[in-house]
């Protein structure tokens, strides 16, 4: 068998496949079904050279740093045809067009200032959305209502209510949704989750999620400050009104786009900067992707203007008693976005370093391939593309992402209020805490709403 394998080259494989097909056709359908096919006869019927009808037509909204990294991975897949970009920044529009046209060696990529124009294009099947946090939820809802599948960067929603609205619309319109929680397709995290879900850790006692510093609370002084007003830029170059989008009005200052979203509560989703990844992995390991913890208890949450400043922990408990522990410190030094799963018969801890640490009794299970850090984005995008074809759910679909986000938002509200909270997953509300319940949503600035723009779809 080994010899036979060695003798099959790539070109030879194709020839073998073609010969087998010709022989089977000549012998008729019955002959083709007699006996098992020899090894090497299995394989794709059509390889590569996807025709325009086979391809998935993509548009992009708000692609810069992270979005450009996604775009480069996307362009590398033959199933994808990327045709348009919408961005409020002229420079970003031109950067994407230049990249796409350079790749395809043509001048076809269309540029739009208003995302509504991409949503209205019936020829676009799917969207890559990598705006800043404040726009993710509304863009996802509008994309669903326009019948577009979407790969959307995280965090996917600015509030608990928005998290549910995204999942509800994706379900209602039957589109395929993949959140940019790419660690769900990264080997070390898959391995750790596999140990937990297979029972090799014994009975689970706690799952840990490293949620980093957590961006600042609404009442953290600096997070609601206004820099000095400056003259508003030309909307053709930078459309401030659309950049601000659903967020509360404030006078223009270049500090907002230049210094990032993290300094201002209106523009970020707090703990979800990392929790979108690590709580997702923890819920996956705990087989709790369909729900959220019912209890949240903060410890050591002190905010400075730009985030949680001390070592903090939010102890969460699921209805079955299992603990989800959110903390801003990695115990094993395994890199960013680390997770740790503990059971009665062992533990495992992983992080972005790619290393896998386990209890002594599980060391024999850890494969030699560990220790390599790599970008899992391509695998995550492939997962999405496969699901566009099969109309099935990717690993970070809207429903799972929703529960991850709701759990993380609930923990963040708990940290901001610095008191124990009890959550009712069925009623989608906190029990006996009106202030916490009021923090479940953020009113949108006019004219934005969780409903598609007035397009002619």
């Amino acid at each position, binding site marked *: 068998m080994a010899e036979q394998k060695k003798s099959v080259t790539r070109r030879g494989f194709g020839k073998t496949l073609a010969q087998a097909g010709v022989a089977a056709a000549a012998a008729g359908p019955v002959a083709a079904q007699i006996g098992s096919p020899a090894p090497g006869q299995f394989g794709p019927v059509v390889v590569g050279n996807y025709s325009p009808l086979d391809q998935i037509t993509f548009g992009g909204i708000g692609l810069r740093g992270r979005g450009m990294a996604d775009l480069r991975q996307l362009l590398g897949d033959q199933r994808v045809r990327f045709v348009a970009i919408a961005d409020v920044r002229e420079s970003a529009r031109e950067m994407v067009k230049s990249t796409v046209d350079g790749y395809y060696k043509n001048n076809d990529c269309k540029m739009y200032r208003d995302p509504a124009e991409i949503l209205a294009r019936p020829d676009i099947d799917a969207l890559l959305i990598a705006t800043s946090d404040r726009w993710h939820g509304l863009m996802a809802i509008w994309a669903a209502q326009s019948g577009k599948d979407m790969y959307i960067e995280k965090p996917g929603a600015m509030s608990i209510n928005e998290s549910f609205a995204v999942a509800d619309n994706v379900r*209602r319109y039957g589109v395929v949704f993949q959140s940019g929680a790419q660690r769900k397709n990264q080997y070390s995290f898959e391995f750790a989750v596999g140990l937990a879900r297979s029972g090799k850790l014994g009975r689970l006692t706690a799952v840990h999620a490293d949620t980093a510093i957590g961006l600042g609370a*609404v009442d953290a002084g600096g997070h609601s*400050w206004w820099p000095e007003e400056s003259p508003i830029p030309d909307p053709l170059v930078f459309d401030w009104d659309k950049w601000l989008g659903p967020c509360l009005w404030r006078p223009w200052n270049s500090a907002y786009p230049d210094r990032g979203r993290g300094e201002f509560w209106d523009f970020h989703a707090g703990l979800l900067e990392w929790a979108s990844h690590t709580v997702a992995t923890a819920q996956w390991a705990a087989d709790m992707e369909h729900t959220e913890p019912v209890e949240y208890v903060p410890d050591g949450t002190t905010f400075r203007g730009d985030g949680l400043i001390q070592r903090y922990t939010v102890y969460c408990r699921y209805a079955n008693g299992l*603990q989800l522990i959110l903390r801003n410190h990695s115990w094993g030094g395994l890199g960013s976005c680390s997770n740790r799963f503990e059971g009665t018969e062992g533990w495992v801890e992983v992080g972005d370093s790619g290393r896998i640490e386990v209890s002594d009794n599980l060391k024999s299970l850890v494969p030699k391939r560990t220790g390599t850090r790599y970008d899992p984005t391509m695998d995550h995008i492939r997962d999405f593309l496969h699901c566009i074809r099969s109309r099935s759910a990717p690993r970070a679909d809207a429903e799972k992402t929703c529960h991850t986000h709701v759990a993380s938002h609930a923990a963040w509200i708990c940290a901001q209020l610095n008191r124990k909270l009890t959550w009712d997953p069925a009623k989608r509300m906190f029990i006996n805490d009106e202030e916490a319940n009021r923090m479940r949503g953020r009113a949108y600035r006019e004219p934005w709403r969780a409903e598609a723009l007035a397009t002619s779809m």
Partner: protein
Amino acid sequence: MPQTTGQTQPPSSAARQAAPAAPRPPAPTVPPEFDALPIWKMDPPKLVAMVKDPSSTVFQKAIACKKLAFVGGKDAIPPMAALLDHPQLSCYARFGMEPNPDPSVDDAFRAALPKLNGRLKIGVINSIGVRKDAKALDALTKLIDDGDPEIACAAAASVGMIGGMQAARVLESALGRTKPPVFPVAARACLLCAENLMPVNRARSLQLYHLLSGENMPKPVRLAALRVLNAAGPAPVTGKKWPPPTGEAAERDTSGFLGRRNR
């Protein structure tokens, strides 16, 4: 503080040292006139007074409304409602009022509706939809025919969010007379309405889904309605029948792994 198993404690101080906290950038220098923290620490009565005070700055009123969203009572509603016609502060007033459970919020939004125009009116229509204020249905029904298509779209969307039998009638009627850009919004609103009616009135809900599965509907709405109808049961017997294969196509019937069947 809840305790976890022994294994949840840090394995060693050495491991902790292996992961030092990343150096933090300095906190931003905040101009005192734009510092939210002193306002944030105020009690609700002081916040209400700040919103009322004509000498308060736009920033002060904005942050006071933001805080009142979480802690404001009934007395906070009238001063915030008075800002609904303010071009910059209207969104802050709605931010402060929308999550407040007091019914006087709905009264204030309804009262503001005829006094506003353009974007500010759209904002209030949107808030009415979020709060599901059924008492506003008559006013919103009229606005579906407003000359400003953005106002008409907002009204149709809010009717869908409010939901119920009256909303279903309103949207069904709107689908018969509106054109794009209002028509697709009315269709999406009707889809939401149908979904919300399903647990309480299945027959009426399915009636709406049938309407929305028509070929004149926006494609995403039509496909969504068809999926629900498929889940609800097979198509009626009187539905379209496809002709059986004839000629060479019928002779090539090799479907199924075992080859020709039923022959």
